[in-house]
């Protein structure tokens, strides 16, 4: 609550305070402000870039939400249209629905940090979604606005065919590919500098090419100047996407009948034969 203009107060219980300030902290009323004069007048914690309280709050928040889950409710989609779309996918053949059911396919949403380290470091955040059925990285925009918090009934979840490790590596490969297509002056600058410094180092250790000291100094140089794209996961979420599953009778032009099971993924807009 705002106890006076510009100063807010919140009651923090012991558990929260311990998370914020360490094991000795106790429950207390926290007061916040964004202005220094108010902080001094009320003894409130100042929230500004680099302030202790802002840092502790950000650190606490960043320790949360490492793994979450969300789903897209199947009711958001118009099933008759989907059925029509599935049936029309058999060109030159007639198809009839025997039974229909609902499953949820799994997608992995990864929040990745990519740090391009050359002479300087440039860090960027990326959200990459991997289809855990196909192992492919989604190249199109995922409709995050359709997501609803929480999971779905476990019996409805289709088993994933791609391990999470593979999904992570796929996402990393995708990001590397993106970086490879972009301006690489950061890496080239670093490589030039590395070559220059290595030449200087060689001149310093003339005739001692196998000395451990030279090896160590080379390592130091590489550690400092070798251009590296370091990718790491900050957090991830499992996304459950409804798959409309149909058991069909398909009649070809010669009148031969066969049964097929088809799943339709409304996110990828793809029909797949099971």
């Amino acid at each position, binding site marked *: 609550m705002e106890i006076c203009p510009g100063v807010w107060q919140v009651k923090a219980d012991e558990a929260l305070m311990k998370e914020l300030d360490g094991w000795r902290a106790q429950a207390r009323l926290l007061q916040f402000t964004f202005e220094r004069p108010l902080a001094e007048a009320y003894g409130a914690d100042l929230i500004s870039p680099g302030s202790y309280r802002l840092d502790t709050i950000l650190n606490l928040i960043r320790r949360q*939400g490492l793994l979450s889950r969300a789903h897209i409710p199947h009711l958001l989609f118009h099933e008759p249209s989907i059925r029509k779309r599935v049936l029309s996918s058999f060109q030159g053949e007639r198809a009839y629905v025997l039974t229909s059911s609902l499953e949820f396919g799994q997608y992995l949403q990864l929040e990745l940090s990519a740090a391009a380290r050359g002479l300087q470091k*440039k*860090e960027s955040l990326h959200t990459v979604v991997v289809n855990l059925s196909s192992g492919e990285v989604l190249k199109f925009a995922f409709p995050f606005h359709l997501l609803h918090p929480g999971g779905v009934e476990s019996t409805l979840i289709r088993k994933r065919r791609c391990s999470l490790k593979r999904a992570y590596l796929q996402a990393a490969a995708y990001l590397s590919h993106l970086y490879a297509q972009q301006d*690489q002056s950061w890496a080239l600058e670093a490589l030039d500098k590395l070559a220059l410094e290595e030449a200087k180092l060689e001149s310093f250790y003339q005739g001692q090419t196998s000395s451990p*000291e030279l090896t160590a100094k080379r390592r130091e140089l590489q550690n400092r100047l070798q251009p590296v*794209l370091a990718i790491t996961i900050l957090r991830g979420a499992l996304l459950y996407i409804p798959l409309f599953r149909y058991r069909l009778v398909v009649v070809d032009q010669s009148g031969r009948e066969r049964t097929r099971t088809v799943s339709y993924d409304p996110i990828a807009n793809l029909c797949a034969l099971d």
Partner: protein
Amino acid sequence: MLPLFPENTKLWPKQDHPQILQEFPCENFQVQVLAAGFKQLMGELRAGRYDTWDWYQLAKRADELVTTHGQAPGLLALQHLKERWEQVGVVPYQHQIRTAERVIHELHGQAILADEVGLGKTIEAGLILKEYMLRGLVKKVLILTPANLVWQWYSELYEKFGIAAGIQRTQWDWEFADVLIASVDTAKREPHCSIITGIVYDLLIVDEAHKLKNSSTASYRLVNSIQKKYCLMLTATPVQNDLKELYNLIGLIKPGQLGSSRSFKSRFMEDKRTPKNPAELRKLLSEVMIRNRRQDGQVTLTERIVHPVVVTLTPKEQEIYNRVTEFIKARGKRSGVSNLLPLITLQREVCSSFLATALTLEKLMAGLSPPELEQAALLLKDLAEVKQNSKCDALERLVAQFSDKAIIFTEYRASQEYIRYRLERAGYKTLAFDGSLSRGKKQWVRHLFQKEAQFLVSTESGGEGLNFQFCNLVVNFDLPWNPMRLEQRIGRVHRLGQTRDVHIYNLITKGTVEEHIMYLLHRKINMFESIIGELDAILLHLNLAKSFESEVMRIFLEHETAEEIQAHLDKLAQRILSGRAQLKASAWEGLL
């Protein structure tokens, strides 16, 4: 002897590197897919710990806030430290900001910070450290300093940069603390040096780096063998007597920057003090060294205003003073100049307080011959009988004019106690500050002085590096003979951050050796007002750093009349002034 890169040295041990799940080349760079976040994610998944979607979204926002997206041209630290600096009263100078920017953007974290004394090298190093930490480039940091500066580094980093560093106390500290401050003398000893050389540091900071000028010392070998990504060396005197010192220092930061040892000699050294190809050498040095000078006008310190307060002794006090001086001269002539220290102490104490003199004389009596002993005993008896202290009377009259806080310096504990007794009796609130206090207590006394007491009576002129910029009055109850100590005293209050002119009151007892000391320090070398921050370099250059007091004592012992003494003090002053001129004009000064 410290092993230099033994074959079994752990190079870049795996545990210090972020664990890598997969590494592969891609175009012009290497891709490292790190394992830490993935492991955490899998841990949560296996435990079935799903957080709410709201927390997930909030944490994503927090990630965005703390991520340093680009290589901003300026310094992130300036924005982060703005509030803190306003609170603790730090105003960064432009040259400090420019230096930090250059080190990060142009020198890529490998630099010698060679600013002249008093321009804030520690602030520059702290700023660079903070910036690297904010950019996520530095985590494991080692700061090597002389033992007496460890605490100063700790408090500067904490107060001014919000960096909670550890102070090395045990051999286990090396591995566990992310930012560790340690004495270089401890670090070079076993088992410490073996541990340190097995750790990979992101940043190594070496203060007073001129102590590494000799490549055959253990300190040099230690610093050379520490595995580091970035390295900062801090020194005001990167070269003192030989250009090779500079070569050695740069070899620690960037081996090969000045070529091999042989090529450096042939390309850049006429002789050990005269550089060859100065323009080329200057260019190479500028790629690794930054030197800001006071004369560049980047820093303007407030004025130092000196007020001599002449104290006239009572006839009884003067008589005792003369007898003690005669005793000292007689003993000095007998024992020769080799054993001057106790006599120097006695001669200085007699100008401070008779109580302090009596205590030292008592200690001295153990080694005296029977006739001397008799003389000393008589002196001791007379010293005990003197009830008046004209200097303390003068001090009381002086401080009665003060409406602000003042630091009163004395060299002696006995004088310190007596001054406090007199001032407390007069109704003033005083605090004692001396070398026997622990680091924490010193901080506490400083805090109390700032908040409550009016006078701090201190025997500690430099030492732990506590700064008192909130105070601008200094009283020298007695004068140290070594100008370095005097400079350290004044330097406690007259430094960056002092916003008011500093008034220095020197109590000089008329007709004593103090008059001569004042003549030398104030009138001849004008050290109160002009030689700020240069003195250590001058005395080192003249090899007077440790022998200055003996030199002065020798003059007093060997000459009787005031004129003779003054003439010799003039010569000493001339030596100092010409040493200063030589340093200014030295061939390498133009290089730096």
